[in-house]
């Protein structure tokens, strides 16, 4: 394919891919009566910020944002900590039952959470966690993918380095603290990004466990607004836009890490 032709095709493809986001932005700034009268349009005759002010006036938008931040941050911190530790142990430590543990942990890669959501819900309810963020955080923290990423990383770390630390008198904890963690910064960056994004966008499990609008994270809040706004797409798109801007900014800024993380999450 010649270069101008490739360029033209890329332009067309990009136009198609950006269209849904473009529509979201335009409609978020379209006066509601225009949508009701003539339908949503990509080039409305007037623009307004009323959708945003109505949204903030009628709903606890900041509350939803802070809920999302709290849940995503705590889940990410817990998730990175437990998965990193487990991945390191599975890669670098000898212990009784290692193969068994490895097989168990990695088998859970194959169990879709949706398949067991009903007993999971009853368990969380019986633990008295419904109505608390912990109902979302605790079951989401340990991910087989996180353990897998960490283990892959540590397997490639030479044993000599750890042995040297040990010879210098470091115990396992000191080795972790002074040798392993400083080395694992790129791994931690990838794990943080993936965990945060997954939790920020997660819908089904928070939908099941967070039953109070004051506790909603952003996706559940969007579902709630879908019922509230009905066909008032302006308000709905205003919230949709607000909810995805933070992550889009992070994504574009740290694209390199995301690309690295995603492509490392499975192949080769």
């Amino acid at each position, binding site marked *: 394919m010649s270069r101008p032709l*490739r360029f033209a095709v890329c332009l067309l493809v990009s136009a198609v891919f950006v269209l849904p986001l473009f529509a979201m932005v335009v409609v978020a700034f379209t006066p509601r009566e225009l949508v009701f009268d003539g339908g*949503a349009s990509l080039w409305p005759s007037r623009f307004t910020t009323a959708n945003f002010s109505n949204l903030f006036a009628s709903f606890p938008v900041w509350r939803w944002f802070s809920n999302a931040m709290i849940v995503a941050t705590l889940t990410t911190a817990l998730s990175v900590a437990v998965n990193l530790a487990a991945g390191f142990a599975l890669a670098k430590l000898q212990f009784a039952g290692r193969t068994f*543990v490895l097989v168990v942990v990695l088998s859970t890669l194959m169990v879709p959470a949706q398949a*067991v959501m009903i007993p999971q819900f009853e368990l969380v309810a019986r633990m008295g966690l419904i109505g608390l963020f912990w109902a979302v955080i605790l*079951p989401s923290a340990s991910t087989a993918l996180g*353990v897998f990423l960490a283990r892959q990383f540590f397997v490639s770390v030479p044993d000599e380095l750890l042995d040297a630390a040990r010879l210098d008198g470091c115990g396992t904890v000191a080795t972790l603290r002074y040798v392993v963690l400083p080395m694992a910064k790129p791994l931690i960056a990838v794990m943080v990004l993936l965990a945060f994004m997954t939790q920020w966008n997660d819908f089904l499990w928070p939908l099941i466990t967070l039953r109070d609008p004051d506790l909603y994270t952003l996706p559940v809040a969007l579902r709630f607004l879908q019922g509230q706004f009905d066909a008032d797409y302006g308000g709905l798109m205003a919230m949709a836009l607000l909810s995805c801007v933070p992550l889009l900014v992070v994504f574009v800024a740290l694209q390199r890490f995301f690309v690295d993380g995603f*492509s490392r*999450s499975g192949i080769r």
Partner: protein
Amino acid sequence: MTIEKTALAPGQEAPRQDATPTGKAPRSRLRDNRAAYALLGPNLLLIGLFLLVPLVWSLLMSFQAKRSFGPGEWSGLTNLSRLLSDDVFWRALLNTAIFTVATVPLSVGLGLGLAMLMDKALPGRGVFRTIVYLPIAVSSLVVSLVGLLLFDESVGIVNGVLRDLGVGPVSWQSNGALAMLSVVVMTLWTRVGFGMLVYLAALQDVDKEVLEAATMDGAGGFNRVRHVIVPWLRPTTFFLVVINMIWSFQVFDVVYVMTNGGPGYSTTMLVTYAYDEGFGPSRNFGYGATVGLVLLVITLAITAVQLRVNRRQEA
């Protein structure tokens, strides 16, 4: 090479070299044991409690007549026999299969096509790539609501454009097949970018010398793609097919928000049906868990096929 394959080969690592071959070895081994269990403990506790316990519980529930909380009553194979004669369940299974067949080849194929298109130097290549990646970072809820905005029958963007062109209105929501199509389109929007991303990473490693040799031997563009690049990318393609199949069988968010399984049952999927049974008005935990187990069995079957194919490729 894929997740499970790499990971399930623990025997590959070099045996641990004890730094001190003298009498110290047993002590350091003991210390390793304790450290290992301490490091693994929190993870195993969370996995055990929130995944393995529900897994076993799911099996038990599927043999119980159980609504909402509280103890269920053993009911033998009642749930299973209801499942086998439940038209809605079979419809959901068929729909899920249709959705999978529609989304997987297109996600992978378009991902490959775009990766080839954007692999070589091109002005603005970074921007083009970023635009195609962007939907990966958009939550499925935003994807679904934007999908509604586009495909709403009365005020939606697509019908508005079609009206300006003198076509329509198209019944995206009241026609079952078109509703399925709208869900598929929005799913592709988020999946193609992922496929392209993974393919681009793999294309980085294509052996340039082999490509040059093929060019020297007179292989044209099409032949280079067919005989060099596509075989090189086979493991990547395989990984993408498997992960997309698993995602498609688990689809929930987009369907739940855009069509809620309708019109009628024409877009009801396995997970939306399990959700409706378990958390809808009937709160039938026993039956919902049984439907969930079907999803588990399908996922395990896909993984088993994957492992077997991988092993054959190794041999």
